């Protein structure tokens, strides 16, 4: 201990180390080091030069630091410095090289020269300062790198999360698209959409409202998850919550805050929702419904991404509805509006499909007799009513799988599927003749008509009558057979035979 007392230099170095180590800001550390060095040397002036610039200076009045002079001393161009009011002070200098070279400058007023121990001390302090600054810089760099790495990791995690979400959404959407293009039943598609919305957005409740076509301002819940919606009647839009609002406004609507559910919530006595959002659904460009998700969780908030997801889903529902509607319109055009039977186009399509499928079908071609006099005496409404009743009677006589169609003004056709025995076809033909001969009552008047029926069967190896598709061919054969029935006295059926074709002078082309 006595030796330590004799060399205060060690003590001063240790104290300087303690001082510099207590800062993690380089500027503050350098300034504190300058002060400490001055104190240790009982000097009036101390300065630290870093990278050729005065980084800290103690002992000069504010704003009067003689930077040029200090740099000159640091470069060892001179060993004194002028301090205002004190004349020249002897300077002592110690430098270090390396990444950031620097110099410690001490200047003390008075005549005493610096001792060897003091020179050692200043050199020691300079070295210590260099090491401390290097460590500080390394620490800062490491902190900066670590911070950047952490930020990058957070960003990566966020991107990954987003990608996963996108992928999930795409998978769900492609399932829906596939269902739409496969012409799955509409209700099934809507069910798939609501289930997928629940899966992706995560709320307990999903509902699809569709506007009531008969009553504007009202909507019915067509598909849902989490709601007891069986046989729910249509309701005014104001009562349809966020979905109703979305339909009225034609834009995405978000509702926060406690409000009533528009239907009973399944598996819960609760009817209160805490958050709901809905997007409008379109058909042929018009708003026809609203797709809703809702939560019974207080504090639920919908992120921008979730709103975008709901919007995508609503668009898919719009696509599905528009497509189904088109299909519906096609169907409606394919049916005869008067009788409700298949129209000619549809009938031929079905016939073609059936022949392509099985190959053993029978065709009955039915021409009504004595319809014109009814039209003439009772008018066309009566004629229409007559056709309707005839169609009903025909429809009642065929099997569910068979198809009846109206193919001309007074002409009907019946496709009998899977006919292995010709007698099946002729039995039905006979019954049709009998039924249509029964009196009808049309607009209050008793009426009696009849029918002539031609029967033709299709067989894969049957010779074709003409160079035409099988369906056309079959229809013509049945037609020829019908004509034969007319020639044989009407009110009867005839089965096609090739000889009939020879007797024809006039070929009525159907097609």
């Amino acid at each position, binding site marked *: 201990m006595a030796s330590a007392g004799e060399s205060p230099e060690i003590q001063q170095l240790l104290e300087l180390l303690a001082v510099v180590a207590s800062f993690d800001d380089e500027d503050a550390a350098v300034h504190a080091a300058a002060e400490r060095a001055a104190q240790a040397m009982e000097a009036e002036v101390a300065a630290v030069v870093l990278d050729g610039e005065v980084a800290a200076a103690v002992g000069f*009045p504010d704003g009067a630091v003689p930077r040029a002079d200090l740099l000159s001393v640091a470069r060892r161009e001179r060993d004194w410095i002028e301090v*205002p*009011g004190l004349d020249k002070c002897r300077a002592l200098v110690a430098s270090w090289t390396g990444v950031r070279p620097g110099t410690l400058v001490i200047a003390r007023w008075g005549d005493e020269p610096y001792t060897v121990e003091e020179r050692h001390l200043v050199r020691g302090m300079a070295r210590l300062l260099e090491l401390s600054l290097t460590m500080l810089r390394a620490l800062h760099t490491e902190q900066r790198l670590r911070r950047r790495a952490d930020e990058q990791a957070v960003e990566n995690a966020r991107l990954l999360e987003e990608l996963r979400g996108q992928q999930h959404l795409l998978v769900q959407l492609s399932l829906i698209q596939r269902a739409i293009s496969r012409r799955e039943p509409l209700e099934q598609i809507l069910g798939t959409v609501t289930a997928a919305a629940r899966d992706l957005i995560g709320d307990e409740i999903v509902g699809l409202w569709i506007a009531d076509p008969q009553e504007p301002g009202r909507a019915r819940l067509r598909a849902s998850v989490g709601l007891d919606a069986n046989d729910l009647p249509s309701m005014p839009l104001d009562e349809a919550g966020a979905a109703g609002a979305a339909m009225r406004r034609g834009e995405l609507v978000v509702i926060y805050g406690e409000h009533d559910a528009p239907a009973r919530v399944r598996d819960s006595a609760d009817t209160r929702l805490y958050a709901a959002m809905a997007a409008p659904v379109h058909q042929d460009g018009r708003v026809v419904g609203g797709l809703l998700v809702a939560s019974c969780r207080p504090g639920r908030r919908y992120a921008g991404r979730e709103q975008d997801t709901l919007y995508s889903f609503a668009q898919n529902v719009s696509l599905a509805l528009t497509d189904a509607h088109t299909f519906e319109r096609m169907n409606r055009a394919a049916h005869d509006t008067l009788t409700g039977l298949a129209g000619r186009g549809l009938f031929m399509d079905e016939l073609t499909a059936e022949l392509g499928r099985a190959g053993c079908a029978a065709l009955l071609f039915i021409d009504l007799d004595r319809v014109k006099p009814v039209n003439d005496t009772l008018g066309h409404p009566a004629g229409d009513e007559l056709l309707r009743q005839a169609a009903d009677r025909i429809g009642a006589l065929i099997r569910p799988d068979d198809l009846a169609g109206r193919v001309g003004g007074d002409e009907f056709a019946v496709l009998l599927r899977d006919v292995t025995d010709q007698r099946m076809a002729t039995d039905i033909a006979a019954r049709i003749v009998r039924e249509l001969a029964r009196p009808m009552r049309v607009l209050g008047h008793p009426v009696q008509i009849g029918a002539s029926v031609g029967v033709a069967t299709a067989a894969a190896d049957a010779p074709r009558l003409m160079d035409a598709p099988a369906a056309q061919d079959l229809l013509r054969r049945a037609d020829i057979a019908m004509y034969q029935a007319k020639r044989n006295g009407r009110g009867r059926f005839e089965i096609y035979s090739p000889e009939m074709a020879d007797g024809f002078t006039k070929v009525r082309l159907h097609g």
Partner: protein
Amino acid sequence: MQPRNVHPGQSFDGRRWMGVGRADCADGRQAAAEATRAACNDREPKLLLVFSAITHDPETVVAGLQEAAPGVPAVGCTTHGELGPGGPTDGTVTVAALGGPGFSVAFAVEEHASGRQRESGAAVARCLDQVEPLAHRVLLLLTDGMIRDQESILRGVYGVAGAAVPLFGGACADGWRMTGGYLIADGRVLTDAVVGVALSSEAPLSVAVRHGWHKVGDPMIVTDSGDGRVYMLDDAPALDTYLDRLDAPPEAYTQADALVEFALSRPLGVQRRSGVEARNMSTEIDLEGRSIGGGGAIDIGGLIWAMEGDEASILRATDAACDEALARLGGENPVGLLTFSCAALRAVLGDQGIRREGAHIEQRAGHTPFAGFYTYGEIARVRGIDGFHNQTLAVLALG
């Protein structure tokens, strides 16, 4: 050396003068007015320095100063005893008045100094710009004794004033009540403040500071410290190491008053290039944490000593400080002295001892008026960058 003046308290050319007045009436206003009039002696002062016992309401003292010398800058504080001709007192208002064309004075006040010590020091130092640029300058500083880390105030001052301006001053006291003293400046009573008075003069001004403590035994290494406290000395709890080194009585280890009494006369010594600095460790007792306070920062790895002193060594220091200050006037006859002694010295000297201290000062001063007080810390900087002291006598001699 006996300085001689034709007129005590006045320079030979009559351009500078200092007078000291004292009054001990119970009413602060009256005491202040009387002391001022006695100090001025019908002359127009440029500056009043007032040292008032804590028993006087400082507001009344301010009123008395303004009554006796309206419009004259008056700066001062409360004390733990006032110094002046006739001996140390405990109930007076002692006023030193300075005047004459050879002096120029400017002052500055900075409040809310705690927490911004360095800034406050830098701010008050700017009053140096406002005095006439006469040949010699000194910056007088008075601080609130309750402010911690006063060394930082001085660093702030040094950063603005620079190495060419000596510093002199003290921390105000409160009669050892330890509840808070007061500063007087600008017609106001202040706390948590720093007051600076820039004084420039045609004649030399010199500052000296001495203490009478000597090291006891081997030094101890600071192995853990922080925030102005020393926690471990030689890897053991600091308080116990210090008490062990001095063979302290058992009650000092456990009882606060016993420890304070023991420590008052046994400061810590911190090695500096030109000697050992004394640090008062009797304030802020920490019996539980076993740490000791060292005033300014004592860094890890530093060496400190236990120190002892007695009346003889203290009085030798008294003489030496006065002599040095007077000698540094370079042959000029002194116009006046300001003498700031440490309140903690009274514990060693006792009431009799301080009278002897006063007598020594008076003897050194000769006919030169002097005034001062017992402070909670002395400020004196001539060399280096440090300036805050404990347990010393600081003297400013005005030529």
